[in-house]
């Protein structure tokens, strides 16, 4: 993988795909977006959705061999869910249960719980971890869902996409990350492509400056459709919103069309010094260089001179890729805002309020969303999938259902 996480802490964004090998939550979300039982076997809430009860899955063991208890879950959730009261109780049949209470309705609590309160009950145990280098995982024989088919998983960190593709082609790796431009090559020779939903925001993030006109001019000059068709091979979707459409439901309200005449008008009104910008990118990011160069070409058409240089800490604009951190729209928006250096959005509570928060975040063009991309993986022909998708909507790994042909499942 390209990322080089320093730890397996679920709070570490880089560790996201690895987390699901080891850790689990009370609830998980299926491909249709519906909450499904995980460590909680069932749940119910009152009519106002202020009090929820989660009945724990009996017989579940943590990786240290101890049984999963309500007290363990409470401890894990307390740090993740500030502002609510969490307590342990016993449900009918002497089943351990957890009660979550708040003074306000929590209609999206299940989505929160799908990515909060991680516990090490997952299908694989961590057996080795070298920060920034590699990690090893072994099958959890006591996994409540049954022992995984794979005995072990070895993950190498910090590998560029080209190196990963070469590893796949040389048989050194069974599963690798794939870039949009490499999909055709990656899917040849019986290999398969796995994809998440559009979970990764590609955007331009500007350094703070009082005059919004250069930013607006640059934003209006960008031809997302051409970049999407050519550079991204139509993977993902062009966007001018921070949250993807499948999370917010209103992303289409933010127009993505290029408006070169308006961009030129804005640029013409700028003093010459304001028509020059520097743009930087992380070379490890997917399609970063061609995207950055295309932004510069579009900007030039509007009369703005954009100099592109990788890893330039003093650049005016950064081309960044930020992965969705939560299925809860409000939490996801707050995390995206933080990652892009934007002010914290106002609390919402309704779709209309959430839209207003997002509109305010974008109105001065401090961030210019470009694309929502899926996370893509290529798997060798010997990797087989028994049930369910091997990659979730959010891009997390569900490798307990994988097996390798030539070995007994």
């Amino acid at each position, binding site marked *: 993988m390209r990322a080089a996480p320093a730890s397996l802490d679920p709070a570490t964004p880089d560790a996201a795909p690895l987390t699901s090998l080891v850790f689990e939550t009370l609830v998980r979300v299926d491909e249709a*977006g519906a909450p499904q*039982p995980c460590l909680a*076997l069932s749940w*119910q809430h009152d009519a106002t959705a202020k009090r929820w009860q989660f009945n724990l899955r009996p017989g579940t063991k943590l990786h240290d061999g101890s049984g999963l208890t309500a007290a363990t879950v409470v401890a894990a959730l307390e740090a993740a869910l500030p502002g609510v009261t969490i307590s342990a109780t016993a449900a009918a049949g002497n089943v351990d249960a957890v009660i979550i209470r708040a003074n306000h309705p929590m209609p*999206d609590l299940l989505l929160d719980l799908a990515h909060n309160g991680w516990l090490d009950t997952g299908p694989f145990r961590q057996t080795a971890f070298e920060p920034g280098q590699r990690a090893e995982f072994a099958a959890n024989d006591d996994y409540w869902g049954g022992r995984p088919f794979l005995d072990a998983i070895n993950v190498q960190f910090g590998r560029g996409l080209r190196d990963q593709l070469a590893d796949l082609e040389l048989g050194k790796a069974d599963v690798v990350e794939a870039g949009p431009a490499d999909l055709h090559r990656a899917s040849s020779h019986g290999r398969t492509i796995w994809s998440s939903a559009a979970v990764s925001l590609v955007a331009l993030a500007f350094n703070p400056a009082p005059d919004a006109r250069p930013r607006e001019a640059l934003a209006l000059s960008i031809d997302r459709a051409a970049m999407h068709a050519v550079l991204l091979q139509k993977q993902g979707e062009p966007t001018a919103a921070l949250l993807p459409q499948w999370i917010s439901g*209103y992303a*289409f*309200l933010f127009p993505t069309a290029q408006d070169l005449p308006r961009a030129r008008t804005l640029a013409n009104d700028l003093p010459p010094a304001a028509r020059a910008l520097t743009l930087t990118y992380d070379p490890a990011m997917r399609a970063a260089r061609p995207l950055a160069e295309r932004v510069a070409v579009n900007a030039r058409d509007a009369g703005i001179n954009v100099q592109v240089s990788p890893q330039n800490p003093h650049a005016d604009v950064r081309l960044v890729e930020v992965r969705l951190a939560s299925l809860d729209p409000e939490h996801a928006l707050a995390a995206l805002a933080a990652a892009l250096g934007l002010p914290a959005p106002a609390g919402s509570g*309704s779709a209309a309020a959430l839209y207003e928060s997002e509109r305010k975040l974008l109105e001065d063009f401090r961030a210019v969303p470009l694309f929502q991309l899926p996370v893509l993986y290529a798997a060798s022909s010997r990797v087989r999938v028994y049930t369910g998708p091997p990659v979730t909507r959010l891009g997390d790994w569900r490798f307990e259902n994988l097996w390798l042909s030539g070995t007994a499942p």
Partner: protein
Amino acid sequence: MSADPDSAARDLARTIAAAVAHEPVALTVKNLSALSAAETAEIRRTLESELKVAGPPSAEVQLTISENLTQFLLVAEIHRAGERQVVLESWPRTPAASGGPPPDQPARVTLEKKLLWEQDQPILDAAQAGDAMLVLDANRVLLVRGADRQSTPIPATHAWPRDPRGRLSVSDTAFTAYLPGTICRGSTQPQLSLACQDSPDPWLLAPGAIALFTPDRNLFTGHIDIEPGGVHDLAPFYSAASVGDAWIFAAADGRAHVYAHSWDPAGGIEGWGSDIAAVRTPCGARILATRPTSLAEPDAIQPYDLVSDAPHAAGPPLEFDGPITALWSAGSSVTAVSRDLQTGRYAAYSLAPNCGY
């Protein structure tokens, strides 16, 4: 957030009407959601009934019906006098997202599939026996314990039907294998042992329930002895399930027959396959039923509730790549056998139910 699409549409119409000073509007509707054309038309009708759409419009309203993970959204873009105003209303997609299930709403049951064993020969049943697993086919009983494999042949004292069926009943280390006209008793300890004999004795249908099996066919005769309930002679059936105080029999006539506790016929169920089984879930007993497909088609297994003797889907179907050739209850799980239409191999799965709302 509104409670339902009708209230959302009415709330949205009121907001739009206020924004356009109650003057006529031109309304266009686009549906980006999973709502049907009929539901979309109903929303449009509600809006048109609340808004003035006759006469020269003072504003254009573009309504988009959209959705996210938890809500459906009505998004109206109001274009008036060169200005654009956006108003939104929403309602929950599922009871779990808001409001919650009423206390008497049954839980949704989903099935988790776990592969137990795969082989070329048709698997009749598979069952856990302590730390080992038993696999029954028409020729042998196989014991799998870690990497250890032991098998004992089943003596062929008479010809099997073309579509033989069989069932395992396990109690600790002892087990019984029921085959058409043959019953085998064995043990998994210290080594796999098996003793078979031709026998017309009934098969164990469920705890406390036995039924005669037709030796040269693939179905039960209909003669059953159930405790409590006594002996009954019903129509021949392929499989049976008990939920609450009702019994359901997937009969040879292609229907599932329901019998209430008095053993009076309580109706028939169309649309189920010949394999049904009861499963104990954390939220109560459910019936799992196959579809009425042929052996050349993929099949699926779906959980059902029996409400007033009528079936109600209790969760989504679990799809298989091939036909289901066996389905036996194992108490809190069910063993299902499916034949892969591509490879022709048979796979036995354990299906575990999960409950949620």
